[in-house]
């Protein structure tokens, strides 16, 4: 492995990743001078030092040194938490990058035509991920150092440093595995055509994202393993906990155990690196989506959707959206979000003991337990809606030159976003029925409420996406500007709070004042609010979309 090539390539990868956040002033200055990331790291390290010192001062009584069980608990919590947090953070950030990756851009990546080995690529890519997010590592070190010194655990801190570095490497290398797995899945599916393959492609991508996310979900793994072995020993079987156990065992003076888990952590890193390398070597270059359908393809007959009142242009627009979503790698992954997000958000509810019908009068109605699920679906719809206009990219002229009105475009985007999100809703209904033992009435209420939440959030997303579109095509297209994303996220959560208000009020009245509002009334009220918000957001989308259609981005 040529180190000079590795470092140079890592720098190029880091710059290209950061520059995809084109509208951010911060990233522009960083990409001009990557050393700035190091300087930011130093500043955050100093800030961490201050907060770490303040934490020990706060916890110590009367200025006396922090000792005893409180000090031990603090050190175990902080030192043990750092590796676990770092693995999760690095992996999640890498996952988010991958969600936005464009096959078209990746296929023209320099790796395809430069003399770079798979090993150099994996190492450089993992290194660039590690360095990009290194300020977080620095703040963790800064925070842990005064705690280590002032509690007499400097040795523990010195061991934490390499373990934390190992954790970031584990997270970064895991992203490389995910990257290759997704590339191979896309390539494999893209070689085939037909409706069954289209469905398989979506399910395949969702499954990969879901499984990899689950592998790093301690809550889920503990649940599974706890059912097999004793709860206390369960963590020992979860690889993601090994770096944490290495440091906590050391703090408990279990040196043998610490060395064992440290060895396992190193072995995990080596294994993951080997897998990443093998996958990268096997699926070297990403093949751009080049589906070769059997036969010449035939023009479509008038759609049966016309019976539902959809015009021929509307059906054509919808079909185009569906094809885009199932064939463009960067869009397939966006589409998975409204399906995955509710599952992720509602993990705690899913894995909590289900409310039983015999648990007494204080029992919580399952309709309140599905709120996290609806929150996830709403966020997913919002995200998909926000990116829907920017997805047109440089291909926008195709729509702009056709007699397509702003309202027709908005409706097709809304219909498509709602259709995709409804899959997540359907899954939610099944989960509610199976795991929460919800009644038919609750399921119907959940579906009805879910539909209006989807419509409201998707409309808001499109309204935001049409005001803050990002049409630039890059290796990591983001489709909506950073400012738009922030405004959208804030407004989306606010909108969900407004829609959920009748439900929350009903819950408060029932719990604290024993006033029972009819569930149908509460749901109807929430639904009406959502309907009104949908209409407002839809109306707000028309003008900016009209402007986009009448003034192509230069």
């Amino acid at each position, binding site marked *: 492995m040529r180190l000079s090539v590795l470092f140079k390539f890592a720098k190029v990868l880091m710059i290209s990743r950061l520059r995809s956040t084109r509208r951010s002033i911060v990233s522009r200055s960083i990409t001009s001078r990557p050393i700035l990331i190091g300087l930011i790291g130093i500043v955050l390290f100093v800030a961490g030092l201050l907060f770490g010192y303040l934490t020990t001062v706060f916890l110590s009584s009367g200025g006396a040194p922090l000792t005893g069980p409180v000090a031990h608990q603090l050190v175990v919590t902080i030192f043990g938490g750092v590796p676990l947090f770092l693995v999760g953070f690095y992996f999640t950030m890498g996952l988010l990058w991958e969600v936005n990756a464009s096959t*078209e851009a990746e296929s023209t990546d320099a790796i395809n035509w430069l003399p770079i080995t798979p090993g150099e690529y994996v190492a450089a890519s993992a290194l660039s991920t590690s360095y990009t997010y290194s300020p977080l590592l620095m703040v963790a070190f800064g925070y842990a150092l005064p705690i280590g010194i002032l509690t007499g655990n400097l040795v523990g801190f010195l061991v934490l440093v390499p373990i934390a570095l190992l954790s970031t490497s584990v997270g970064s290398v895991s992203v490389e595995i995910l990257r290759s797995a997704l590339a191979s899945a896309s390539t494999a599916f893209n070689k085939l055509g037909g409706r069954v393959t289209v469905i398989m492609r979506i399910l395949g991508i969702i499954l990969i994202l879901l499984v990899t996310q689950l592998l790093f979900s301690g809550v889920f793994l503990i649940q599974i393993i706890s059912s097999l072995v004793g709860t206390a020993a369960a963590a020992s079987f979860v690889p993601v906990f090994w770096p944490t156990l290495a440091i906590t065992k050391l703090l408990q003076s279990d040196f043998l155990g610490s060395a064992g888990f440290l060895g396992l952590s190193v072995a995990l890193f080596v294994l993951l690196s080997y897998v990443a390398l093998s996958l990268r070597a096997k699926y070297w270059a990403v093949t*751009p*989506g*080049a*589906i*070769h*359908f*059997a*036969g*010449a*393809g*035939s*023009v*479509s*007959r*008038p759609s049966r959707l016309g019976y539902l009142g959809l015009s*021929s*242009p509307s*059906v*054509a*627009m919808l*079909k*185009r959206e569906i*094809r*885009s979503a199932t*064939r*463009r790698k960067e869009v397939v992954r966006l589409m998975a979000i409204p399906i995955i997000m509710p599952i992720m958000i509602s993990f705690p509810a899913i894995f909590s003991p289900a409310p039983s019908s015999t648990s007494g009068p204080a029992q919580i109605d399952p309709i309140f337990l599905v709120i996290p699920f609806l929150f996830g679906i709403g966020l997913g719809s919002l995200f998909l809606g926000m990116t829907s206009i920017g997805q047109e*990219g*440089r*291909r926008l*002229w*195709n729509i*702009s*030159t*056709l*007699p*397509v*009105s702003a309202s027709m475009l908005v409706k097709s985007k809304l219909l498509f976003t709602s259709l995709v999100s409804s899959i997540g809703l359907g899954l939610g209904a099944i989960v509610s029925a199976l795991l929460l033992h919800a009644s038919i009435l609750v399921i119907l209420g959940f579906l009805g409420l879910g539909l209006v939440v989807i419509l409201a959030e998707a409309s808001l997303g499109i309204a935001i996406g049409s005001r803050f579109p990002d049409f630039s095509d890059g290796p990591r297209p983001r489709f909506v500007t950073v400012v738009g994303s922030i405004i959208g996220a804030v407004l989306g959560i606010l909108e969900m709070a407004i829609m959920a208000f009748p439900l929350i009020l009903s819950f408060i009245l029932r719990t604290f004042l024993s006033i029972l509002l009819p569930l149908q009334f509460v749901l109807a009220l929430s639904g009406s609010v959502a309907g009104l918000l949908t209409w407002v957001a839809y109306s707000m989308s028309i003008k900016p979309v009209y402007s986009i*259609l*009448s*003034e*192509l981005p*230069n």
Partner: protein
Amino acid sequence: MTSTGSAIDVSHLTKAYGSTVALNDVTLSVGTGEVRGLLGPNGSGKSSLMKTIMALTKPSYGTIHVLGYDVRANPMEIKKIVGYVPESPRLYEFLTATEYLDFIADVRGIPYEQKKERIARFVDALDLEGKQGDMISSYSQGMKQKVAIIGALLHRPRVLLMDEPLNGLDPKSARLVKELIHGLAKEGVSVMFSTHILEIAEAICDKLTILQGGKILAEGTSKDLRENAGLPGSGLEDVFLKLTGTKGVEDIVEALIR
């Protein structure tokens, strides 16, 4: 809607992108069934003019009428009657050619039987037969250009705007498109056509407009332009270079190869 007898009427058109003036007080008129060639160096405003006529961008000043419709007031009408081929078209690469053309035809409301017949005819004529079921992402630039040309012609437009449509086409297809333009003009279709290949412009255009720096430098038949440049017996290339003030090419080449 006003009737002026011309298919395209551009009056005192100015288009600015921030501080950059792409078009500066452009006035021109293209008659029904006329083929108008747009010539000019890179960045002279040819593409901006076509985009503004197609209602893809708003004029900063001035008016445009296409078949009597004010472009600013009736963009939807313009899109119904005009066919447009952009320079380097970015098509939906995730669709096959058939799916792309099917989409265009459906949005334009072309009935099933007509759509089927027209797509088959164009695909066959432009040698895309057998490849129309492949994703556009696997096409060469020339094949993408062919798909874009078919997309612009499917609805039988009354006005055609073609921004360097022969880019990347093989000789047979280029010849076919040239003949097609001639044939359409005879049927009353007005064509505005930009190119850098001056022989083609001279061969198929009724009139030529030379743009430079967003302004019209010269306008007329190739004979008019020769006389305007004071080079009656010269080739169009010499006329173009003289009118656009491009000189000393030989010296530059000499310096480059030294």
